[in-house]
Every structure is written in structure tokens, then in C-alpha cells.
């Protein structure tokens, strides 16, 4: 399936990836090529086939409700780009 520029810009926004103006034609082309490859799937009739999310069709194991984590804030915030007073700082959040 060919994808147009507008759609590329939409998904880039959804994915929060800034695309430079001059990149867009090339990105559009390569993604169209990949979608063309992927579209080979469309010819297959899969009615009645159950989608498979996990190779072993296993089910979820449950964890006892116990607190075993301890406070490691200093270690975690030691690698943060911008932390202050125990908080991670980001440009102002406007709802």
C-alpha cells in the first residue's frame, strides 16, 4: 500500500518523531516499499484462524502482593537528564 506524505506526517506525530522537510520524500518511499512487502499478507484467507500473540499460548503467572522494592531514587535520578527535589523535570505540562 502506498502511503502519502500526509499520512507519514500523521504517524510521525503519533510516534513523536520529528521529520525534517527534506527527509520526508525518502521516508515516505521506504515505508511505502516496506508496506508493499507486507501487503503480500493480504491475499491470504485467515478467516477462523485465532490470532497468536505468544508462541507458546501460555497464560499469565501471578505474583504475590508483596512489597520487595526499596527506595533507589538517588541511583535512578543520578542518570536522569534533569531531576530536582526528587522530581523529573520536563517542559511545562499543559492539559
Amino acid at each position, binding site marked *: 500500500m502506498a502511503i502519502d506524505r500526509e499520512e*507519514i506526517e500523521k*504517524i510521525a506525530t503519533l510516534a513523536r*518523531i*520529528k521529520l525534517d522537510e527534506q527527509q520526508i520524500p525518502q521516508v515516505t518511499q521506504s515505508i511505502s516499499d516496506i508496506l508493499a512487502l507486507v501487503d503480500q499478507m493480504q491475499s491470504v484467507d485467515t478467516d477462523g484462524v485465532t490470532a497468536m500473540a*505468544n508462541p507458546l499460548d501460555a497464560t499469565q503467572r501471578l505474583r504475590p502482593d508483596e512489597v520487595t522494592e526499596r527506595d533507589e531514587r538517588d541511583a535512578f535520578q543520578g*542518570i536522569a*537528564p534533569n531531576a530536582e527535589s526528587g522530581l523529573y523535570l520536563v517542559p511545562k505540562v*499543559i492539559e
Partner: protein
Amino acid sequence: MHTKTIAELVRGLHNRDFSSEELTRHFLRRIEQLDERYNSFISLTAEQALAQARQADQRLADSNETSLLCGIPLAQKDIFCTQGVRTSCGSKMLDNFIPPYNATVIQRLNDAGCVSLGKTNMDEFAMGSSNETSYYGPVRNPWDRECVPGGSSGGSAAAVSACLAPGATGTDTGGSIRQPASHCGVTGLKPTYGRVSRYGMIAFASSLDQGGPMTRTAEDAALLMNVMAGFDEKDSTSIDHAVPDFTTNLNNDLKGLRIGLPVEYFGDGLDVGIQNAIEQAIKTFESLGATVCDVHLPHTNLAIPAYYVIAPAEASANLSRYDGVRYGYRCEDPQDLFDLYTRTRAEGFGDEVKRRILVGTYALSAGYYDAYYRQAQRIRRLIKNDFVAAFEQVDVIMGPTTPTPAFKLGEKSTDPVAMYLGDIYTIAVNLAGVPGLSIPAGLVDSKPVGLQIIGNYFDESRMLNIAHRFQQVTDWHKQTAPGIDS
């Protein structure tokens, strides 16, 4: 010393022929001297390695030490989180990321007394088949430095191939252990999905990712699997399945072994030289008493299309956490929140990663989910059913690991689809979750050929047995790249 297998080094350590410290220094020296040729390491952790080696020597001095791998130096793919040691995943995004925790695989190897030499180069976030997408530059194939080593575990494959480490860890999402193993002439095992814990292994596509060993021999792979494999309560997808001693059955007789050759793996696009090498290998197995028949994996041609929906879709969500807020790269002077996200991710990710995130985002977006994601998950079931049916007829499936030998650097880097098509024989294995092994089985144009052995779920022990018997009667695995002196 560096051409020795892990099994040989284990004997040497236990016989006090050399100490772990001597062994470690030897490999560290080799890496320092030679790796500029290959670029197989992103980080070298010499001090830590020597400290671990000295600890291992103390453990080895105690005659009660039971860990066979105690004192063995290994290289770790830079996708495994290592406490206190930069873990970049081949990306600028994590160039400054020093995890405060260990991956379970790393923890298990540490506990066994293994020595970590450093972190190996890889395609960025394991997305690639050539190692050219790494932020740290491409890895070069020790057999031909104009060629790629394969990917994404190209650094680990090259390091073992160039005898910079006797063994390494790798991860395989669509062939990322087997394809570089094939291209670099080493043994690489992708275990059954769920066999090796994914905790602390940076996720590319969670339902496909699996860690495994890359070594010179099947026996060495078995030794590493004994430590790496096993249930982990920190990973919900880890399977609580009995873990055998993978070395126990190595020498079992192959008489009566039923080998299936998928007709779909021997068609158009397969290099003639590779086909000949694989046929030769099959004859060897027949001489060891195995029987051979054709099997069908009719949905093989759908594996790549399904994979390039599922893997990018999962990746698009897995990589959303790289947002410049809590760790990793953050763009300079963000104007607002949107700017922080979009520039951090545009600057921190390379082109291939961005491409896959965009494809995955598209495949999951409103109006396309059924046609892409759901359809791919259904095809995935059909592919699994192919394997289930084949394993009702045969014990293992064999074929080439790759359709061509290692290609030239830059040859496919501008054509992603051409690159993707090279994974035709490896990808279905990940979609089905079955184990796959690649072992050296010949040379074409002086470049290694890999034989792929695909086993049934949890049948790694038998696969290693088959590979080991092959390696006892052939010496492809003993060949070293030109210029690797012993």
C-alpha cells in the same frame, strides 16, 4: 590460547594450566590490539574483568567449586543491562545510559563466575541484519573486512570469530544470532521462546526476542546454555519448564534421526555454493545414520511480511519510553513538551529504528489494525502450525541459515527491503517460537556458510547433540578467519 574452545579452557583452568586472570589479560590484550580492525566492542571493561577474574581464581582455588564456567571470559551483547556499565543498545539514545541493575542473563553468568570482557557492538536496538545501523559504526567481518558480519549480534559473532572472546551472548528476534553466526563462521543458538529470561534484555519485539549463546562449538553453546537458560519469575513470558543439562546428550548416536528438508528453503534466491555446502552437510548426517525427507512449510513466504508488521508494531510501543525524561538522550533546550519528545527521538534514534517505529505505528493505527496487525498474528499461527505439522514427521528440520554469504558493507544499507529479504530462513523460527541453531558447514568464496538446525519446542538438547556429532566429524567450526594466528 585464544583459539581454544570454552570446554578446553574449562579444563585448562581446572588443571591450573593458566589462571582466569591470565586468560582474561590475554583476551583483553587481543581486543586492545586487534579490535580496531573489527569494531566488535562498544565498551571494554578491563578493570571489572580483571576483578572478576581474580575472584574467579579464588573460587577455583577451592576444590569444591562446582561452576564449570567459573573464570571463563565472555563478551556481552550491549543489549543486556549491566549494572554500573554503560549499556547503549547500539544507540545514541542510550549512549549515556548506565543501568542500576543487571539483566538476569548477566546475573546468572556473573554468579557462575564468568568474566565479562566488555559489551559488543550491535545494530541499533537490534534492528538490522548487517550491523550497519549501530551508532558506534559498523562491525567488520573477520573473514572479509569489506563484508558485514551480519546482525544484529554482529559484534558478538565477530568477536568470537576473531578469537577476541571464546564465547559471547547474543539475542535473536528474526535471526540476529543465527545469521551473524552463519556469516562469521561460529555456532549460534536461538533457544525456544521463553527458555532464556528477557529481564534486563532491552526489548525490540517482546514476543520474538530471545537471548542465546554464540560460541565456537556446539559443546560450548551447551555449556553456556546450562547457565543462561531457566525460569525467571521477573519475566512473565519465561517458561517454567525443566532445564536439562545440555551437555548430557551431546554424544548420543544419530542413528535413526529423522531430518526434514523444507522444500521452501531450497528454491529461488539460494546461492548455489551455499546449497552445495548444505547438501554436503546433509550427506554427512546420512553417513551418521540419519534419514532425510522433504517437509513442507507452506507459509514460509508469509513470514517476512508478518514479521515486518509484528516486530515494528511491538517495537513502536517498546521504544516509546525513550522520551528524554528519566534517562538517556535528551535534546538541547526543548521549547515545550512536544518539542522535547519529537527532537529527542529524532536526534536519538537512527534511520532504521525510526523507520520501524513509523511502520509499527502505522500498522497499529486506527483503520489499519485488522488488515495489518491482526492479519499478521493470524499468519503467525499458520506459520506455527506449519512447524507443528512438520515435527510430526521429523525430529529436526535443516536448511541454510542465509540465502547468500556475507555481503559487502553498504551493499544493502540503502535498500531496507532487500536487507529484510535476507532473513527469509530465520524469521519463521522466531514467529513460531521454536529453537534454531546455526553451525559452520562450509565456505563459499572464502566466506563461511551456516547450516540451520531447527528443533521442536524445548528440544535444544537434541539440536546440540546433532551439531556436536557433526562437529566431531567435520572441521568447518575449527577454521579461523585469515590473519587469526593461533
